[in-house]
């Protein structure tokens, strides 16, 4: 047996435990995607509160954002998993605790992203909608929000990559995500270089994939867009416009 640990890299472990590692990655993605949707919704609510004409809502939003933006994910998840259990007298699953912890933090970030995106829309857009007799809600839905979303999407993508990476800290409460799985395998074989290289590559791969998906969203809602998805989604509309042009000219 070779006693030199440096050259004894058991790269086959990655292949042997591929199922467990992929399962870990899937858990990380599932927790972070659930938290992403919740954070987007809650973040939007706090962004609107921040732009409210009522000082109470603005204050509430400011306090929320400043508190949760500043808490590290590790602290947040321990606080929720162990702390909230005492507070509410019920136990959360590690999955639930992970989702709640991430949502608390990232809804604060998304609130700021949405606020700055919505405020970047020129006030003439709102005025044009008002002058046409559109209601406030319609103006927000059809005019302000779609344009704001376009500005926000690249930032949402970057934030989501951060969310996936933050799930690595949930190993501490026993969530079987990538790092927890890696730790478990490593405790049997002591192959930290091999196993954490695999873990790192998984995070990098998923970051590339997320970036690719968000670039796709971005090109879809760019106007005018040449994105394939855009062309597919708007094919009926474009045919209808062409028909009207032909019929009237």
């Amino acid at each position, binding site marked *: 047996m070779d006693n030199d640990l440096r050259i004894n890299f058991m790269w086959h472990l990655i292949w042997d435990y591929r199922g467990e590692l992929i399962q870990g990655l899937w858990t990380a993605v599932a927790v972070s995607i659930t938290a992403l949707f919740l954070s987007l919704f809650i973040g939007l609510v706090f962004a609107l509160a921040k732009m409210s004409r009522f000082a109470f809502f603005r204050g509430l939003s400011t306090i929320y954002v400043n508190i949760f933006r500043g808490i590290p994910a590790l602290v947040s998840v321990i606080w929720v998993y162990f702390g909230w259990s005492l507070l509410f007298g019920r136990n959360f699953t590690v999955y639930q605790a992970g989702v709640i912890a991430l949502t608390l933090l990232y809804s604060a970030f998304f609130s700021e992203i949405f606020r700055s995106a919505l405020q970047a829309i020129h006030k003439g*857009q709102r005025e*044009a909608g008002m002058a046409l007799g559109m209601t406030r809600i319609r103006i927000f839905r059809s005019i302000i929000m779609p344009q704001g979303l376009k500005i926000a999407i690249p930032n949402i993508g970057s934030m989501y990559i951060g969310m996936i990476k933050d799930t690595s800290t949930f190993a501490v409460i026993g969530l079987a995500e990538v790092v927890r799985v890696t730790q478990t395998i490593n405790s049997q074989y002591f192959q930290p270089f091999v196993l954490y290289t695999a873990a790192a590559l998984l995070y990098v791969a998923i970051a590339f994939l997320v970036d690719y998906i968000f670039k796709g969203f971005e090109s879809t809602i760019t106007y005018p867009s040449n994105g394939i998805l855009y062309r597919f989604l708007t094919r009926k509309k474009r045919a209808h416009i062409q028909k009207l042009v032909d019929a009237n*000219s």
Partner: protein
Amino acid sequence: MTGSNTIISLRQIKKSFASTEVLHGIDLDVHAGSHTVIFGPSGSGKSTVLRTMNLLEKPNSGSICFENREYGPGLDSAKLERGKPLELRRRVGMVFQQFNLFPHFSAIDNIAIPLATVTGISKSDARERGAIELKKVGLLPWAASYPSQLSGGQQQRVAIARALSIDPILMLFDEPTSALDPELVGEVLAVMRSLAESGMTMVVVTHEMNFAKEIGDQHIFMEAGNIVATGDANFFDNCENERARQFIGSVL
């Protein structure tokens, strides 16, 4: 003067931004089919008067009467039912200096989507109406183009078509050619001219004095938040107000 053919009348309109009063009590009647031109130096309050007419600016005091409804803070003497801003805006079209087209909609959808949401007709019907309006301003071939693909003059013509799609009985123009390159002004004025000839009631804030002279039958000269001179179609030839004459002389 609130005769039966008065479309909109402003009474004692005062407006302040922060602690600065920018309108000091404006009285103005616009009659059906008339073409009112408001002009004057920068900061005189002409755009604010126009924006008060569709309540984009809420006056601090005074009354706006439109179709037997009263808007604004109101005056006791009006004795009219109160109206909701939405009701007024759905009868009044407005064209902005910066066009304010929606960049995420094609030219035809700039017309169709607001029209569909405001009137409740289907998007498909609204697009048919959009095609008709675009044709009137000569832009039907550009129906699927986005604002970023259109010239300033084309964008403003789409904006006019959009405003007309809601079948307004009054059209407001807030310096519609001020943001345009000089060679593009003509095409927008041509659209406005044919609209005026069709009998549309128009209120125009503009620095295009030749155009004002040509279409205007009620001229309003404003300075420092007051209407200082008014006149009919012959205003430019026999204006008696010293300041207005100076201003006209410096611009024409």
